[in-house]
């Protein structure tokens, strides 16, 4: 390094703290948004060897929304390096064990492979709910826009407003509420460690 370049300090006062609300967001798509801020891709001074990434604080990781029936189909592989110690954990099981892990693994996969990946992961702070320690909350200066707006639940809409919406069709007489949800799990198959992503065989039970 020449003495001229030694004075060049790209990242002086440049570590910004961003906030990302993970409520009802797809973790695998938002991971690429978070990656942009973690690795500093959004700055014009970006260089793959330049350690110019920011901090990202992710809140509400408990209320993450997986696409389709991924809660029952997506398996997370783990190997403890002992013989026969392979495990395939379903996404909903992993989420029950630790409600920050799905977001963490999604971001880890999205980040570029290299020596900077672990330091970048250390700048990711995930919290299962919206309670952030005050020393972290004091640093936050920017909020990343969510990928899609959070829809309102029917329970959250006041009754008077809900009643004003016209009924567009009648349900059939033999309709059972919740019966046509695809991807509904078989409760008997619950805790089985699986070799392949879970797919019920034969006739569907519902």
């Amino acid at each position: 390094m020449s003495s001229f370049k030694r004075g060049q300090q790209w990242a002086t006062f440049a570590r910004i703290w961003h906030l990302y609300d993970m409520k009802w967001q797809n973790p695998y798509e938002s991971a690429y948004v978070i990656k942009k801020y973690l690795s500093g891709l959004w700055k014009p001074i970006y260089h793959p060897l330049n350690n110019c990434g920011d901090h990202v604080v992710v809140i509400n990781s408990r209320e993450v929304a997986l696409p389709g029936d991924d809660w029952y189909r997506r398996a997370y592989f783990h190997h403890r390096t002992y013989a026969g110690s392979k495990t395939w954990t379903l996404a909903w099981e992993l989420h029950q064990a630790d409600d920050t892990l799905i977001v963490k693994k999604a971001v880890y996969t999205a980040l570029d492979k290299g020596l900077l990946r672990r330091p970048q992961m250390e700048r990711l702070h995930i919290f299962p709910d919206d309670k952030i320690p005050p020393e972290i909350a004091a640093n936050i200066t920017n909020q990343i826009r969510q990928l899609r707006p959070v829809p309102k639940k029917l329970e959250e809409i006041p009754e008077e407003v809900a009643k004003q919406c016209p009924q567009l069709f009648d349900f059939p007489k033999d309709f059972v509420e919740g019966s046509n949800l695809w991807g509904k799990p078989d409760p008997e198959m619950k805790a089985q460690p699986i070799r392949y992503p879970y797919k019920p065989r034969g006739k569907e039970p519902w």
Partner: protein
Amino acid sequence: MFLTAIRSIIYNENRLYNPGPSKFWRRRRILRLSAHYFGRRRNCYRIALVHVQRGLLYSTIGKKQRSSDLMKLHAQRVSSGAEELGMNMAVYRRGLESAKVCLNNRSLSDLAIWEPRTFKALGNFAWNNYASQGFGNIQNLGNPPEGVVLRGLRRMKIVE
């Protein structure tokens, strides 16, 4: 004939068989290239030769990759600079291109780093120009920033 034989012992470039530099100097040529290696790869000629030749191969490949890597880096920098202004790289490049502003990604990325205000001014012009040519959908693009004089072109604006 005897005299010509003696003459050939003196160094002669035009001789058919030219032994070249001595063994020592031939080895120096390779060992100079392996001077920054570690272990026997650095000092033992037979081992150094293998790794120097492999290293030269890598450097040849790297020369070809360098230009494309730099092009990607410059494109990335221009794109992140444009996104800071609220547009994207396609708007930026095409807005300038249609006005025949011949700046490549490399000079634009230099502007984005060292002269952000110049970059912003160019970007504001590009956005206005892009919208007035009717390239993108103005509803998705948003209102272009004001304070830009366009000669002979209609200023586009979202009608509320």
